[in-house]
């Protein structure tokens, strides 16, 4: 089974690809201008941010970058397309021949380019006879199109690919709205012939659509029926793919260059761009650097970028194993509350965890202190600072050699001194901490 995807993701710019209209229109046809409506005499002007985001994505996907690119007119007639041509890239994509790793699986990337979105159609009227009502607020919204090689071998793999891709793009360029707005054309062939499922919206639907199409093709092959090369669409409500409306004829897009825009030297731009570390790249690095399991690293990074920062800070002090169990345990469970003050509490957290791992504090005491951190109580953290506690214990043990003697036979003998300490410290330290420290001091004297 071979599956290849064409993915359209909206680039999160403030203004549209070729005009100053806002990308967040509300009422129909409220964010429109002569450019994105294709009025005679209006012309496009490229948004720098959109180009740079596209270049960054292509570079991130390990593409061979073009040195110089231009735009093309793809001509076809449809009510949602104001000029009846779409400005896209044809013979000069931003990059080609890249790849993206989904875990250990390498998925080839054929090309990456940017283009404008058409308007949005509302179908009005009786089924089969609907007329178009069009809102052009979406017209000119910048999209990046990513075309993969047919390297995926199951619907689940395709879903994993998209899940991981979106995770990375979210961090890389701040993609928002991810799963719901992502539009995908999927090519799938169980046997020899390839079928294209057009315009599936949302990640879940991609997997559903692919599963249903795979089942359909498998059944047909089992029944020794021929699969026709065709375009189908996914009926979200019924969960099956249906043949696309038969086109009167094969559309000939007649691509020509867009002469209103000129060319763009993206080679030097791409070379100068540093790719920030993305979540899954970071997870892989954490796993490798600190010897923790890949799923754990992924979970830490995906919970929150700042939680991963915390993990790294802890790991540097206490090692990967301990840092992971503290991060995934007590820190994760209180993270919702800790998150806000994570940077100012950072040293406190490190203090607690190092105290525990160095044996100066019990595990449960450490947990308790961490969960208490966000509320602001127990601001004074034990650990290195517990000098007053240790001094008091030493003093008391010195004064009561009988307790040391009794302790040899019965550990409960310590309780007398623990009580003394608790009274003197007025609850500054928990009984557990005090017991722990007392025990350590007494053991020394044996």
């Amino acid at each position, binding site marked *: 089974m071979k599956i290849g995807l064409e993915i359209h993701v909206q680039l999160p710019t403030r203004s549209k690809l070729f005009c100053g209209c806002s990308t967040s229109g509300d009422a129909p046809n409220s964010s429109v201008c*002569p450019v994105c*409506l*294709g*009025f*005679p*005499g*209006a*012309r*496009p*002007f*490229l948004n720098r941010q959109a180009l740079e985001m596209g270049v960054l994505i292509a570079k991130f996907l390990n593409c061979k970058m073009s040195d110089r690119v231009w735009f093309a*007119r793809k*001509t076809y*007639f*449809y*009510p949602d397309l*104001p*000029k*009846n*041509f779409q400005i896209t890239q044809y013979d000069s994509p931003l990059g080609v021949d890249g790849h993206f790793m989904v875990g250990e699986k390498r998925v080839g990337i054929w090309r990456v380019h940017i283009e404008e979105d058409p308007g949005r159609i509302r179908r009005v009227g009786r089924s089969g*006879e609907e*007329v*178009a009502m069009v809102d052009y607020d979406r017209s000119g919204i910048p999209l990046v199109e990513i075309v993969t090689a047919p390297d995926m071998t199951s619907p689940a793999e395709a879903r994993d690919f998209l899940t991981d891709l979106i995770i990375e793009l979210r961090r890389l360029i701040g993609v928002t709205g991810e799963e719901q707005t992502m539009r995908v054309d999927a090519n799938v062939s169980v046997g020899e012939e390839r079928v294209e499922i057009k315009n599936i919206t949302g990640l879940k639907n991609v997997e559903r659509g692919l599963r249903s199409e795979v089942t359909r093709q498998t059944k047909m092959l089992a029944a020794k029926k021929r699969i026709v090369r065709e375009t189908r669409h996914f009926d979200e409500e019924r969960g099956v793919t249906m043949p696309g409306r038969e086109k*009167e004829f094969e559309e*000939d897009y*007649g*691509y*020509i*260059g867009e*002469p*209103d*825009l*000129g060319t763009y030297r993206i080679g030097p731009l791409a070379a100068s761009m540093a790719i920030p570390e993305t979540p899954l790249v970071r997870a892989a690095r954490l796993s490798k650097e600190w010897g923790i399991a890949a799923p754990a690293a992924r979970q830490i990074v995906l919970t929150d970028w700042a939680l991963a920062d915390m993990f790294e800070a802890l790991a540097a002090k206490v090692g990967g194993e301990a840092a992971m169990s503290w991060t995934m345990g007590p820190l994760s469970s209180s993270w919702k509350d800790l998150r806000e003050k994570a940077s100012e509490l950072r040293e406190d957290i490190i203090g607690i965890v190092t105290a525990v791992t160095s044996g100066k504090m019990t595990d449960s005491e450490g947990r308790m202190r961490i969960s208490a951190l966000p509320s602001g109580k127990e601001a004074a953290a034990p650990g290195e600072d517990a000098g007053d506690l240790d001094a008091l214990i030493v003093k008391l043990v010195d004064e009561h050699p009988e307790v040391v003697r009794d302790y040899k036979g019965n550990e409960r003998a310590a309780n007398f001194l623990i009580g003394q300490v608790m009274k003197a410290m007025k609850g500054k330290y928990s009984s557990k901490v005090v017991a722990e420290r007392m025990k350590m001091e007494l053991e020394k004297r044996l």
Partner: protein
Amino acid sequence: MIPFPTVDGLQALDERHAVFCERIEDPLALEHGKFHFSAKDNLCARGFQARAGSRILKGYRPPFDATPIRKLREIGGLLIGKTNMDEFGFGTFSTNSGFGIPRNPFDTERCCGGSSGGAAAAASLIPEHLSLGVSTGGSISCPASFCGVIGLTPTYGRVSRWGLIDYGNSLDKVGLLTRTARDLERYLPVISGPDAKDPTSQSQPVLDMRGEVATVAVPAEALVGLSPEVASSFAEAVKELGRNGVKVREVRMPSLRYAIPAYYILATSEASTNLARYCGMRFGVMNHEFDQGFNDFFSETRSEDFGPEAKRRILLGTFSRMVGFRNRYYVKALQVRQLIIREYRKVFESCDAVLTPTMPFIAPRFDEIARMRPLEMYQADFLTVPPNLAGMPHISLPCGYSRGIPIGMQAVAPQWAEGSLVSLARSWEESFHYRFPEVTA
């Protein structure tokens, strides 16, 4: 009053018409510092329809001013009307308009030339008048020569195309038609300059109005296929230039033979995409038969409201960029354009301008035009197309009269060297007397 034929050539709105006629009778009625101008109908202006000579845009009132119109209005220009033209610029004689045919002010049985025919007629008829024209493949030079006025086509990208209804975006240029070099000196700097609404206007160097034409090159290829009266007038003009101290050299420009096919393929390829938007929705002619399938709906409006030449060029352009033909036609034409630019640059190493007649014949009569095949009409542009394809600035100047009908010569300068063409126009009008049609009151 103005004779009937010129009214045909100018489609001033009714309420503006009175103003217009008044200005013609007494141009000095305008206060000091103000002036009147007209604009070719493919330039958008608030307060006027913009139909670009096409029925498919009937009733369309653009919501903004084209940049050159805005700039002229800002310095006190009064737009008195829009001038008739071949539909979307598709023609050499202004006979392809959806709104009547402008007639030549020198002989009303003859055409004005095209596609800026109305603009040339206005400049020819109205003293002190500035006409904004547009050239894609010679649409300023040709009518200027046929109507006996100066027609300046600036370098591609010199004047913003914001608000210009597209024919071929890589070829379209807004320019000036007028009676005097002084008007060019005044108004070229006004309409020029980078515009934040047209990326292709952003690469220009500052306009330099200095420069001169000391040496001209006459390509041998340009002297073939001329009518006798054009050949002799041009020869006389070249002699006159020589007497004025201009050096004349004969050169060969063999690539010019590829200019016509390369131009028509590029222009129609781009035009056929530009015209896709006219489909009965959003602007211009509206189709209200919503119960048709969209293909029928679009086809209906387009078939009814595009004229025959527009359809011909849409067909040629659509074909030239289709799978299987694209490389042979469209891509090859792009390459040939570079070839021709190189050839010009080589010639400009040793001279300041390339000089040819503007058109191979004088303004033809309408009955002669009716007998021409489309290909013959296209080939009539063989002198005006090359500089347009190469984006080189060029000027057509009146250089002779054959039985009273004007003949023009065309000088082509290197890209961005409009200044030398304006200086040529200034010195030429000192030695050659221009004639203008009489407007009878």
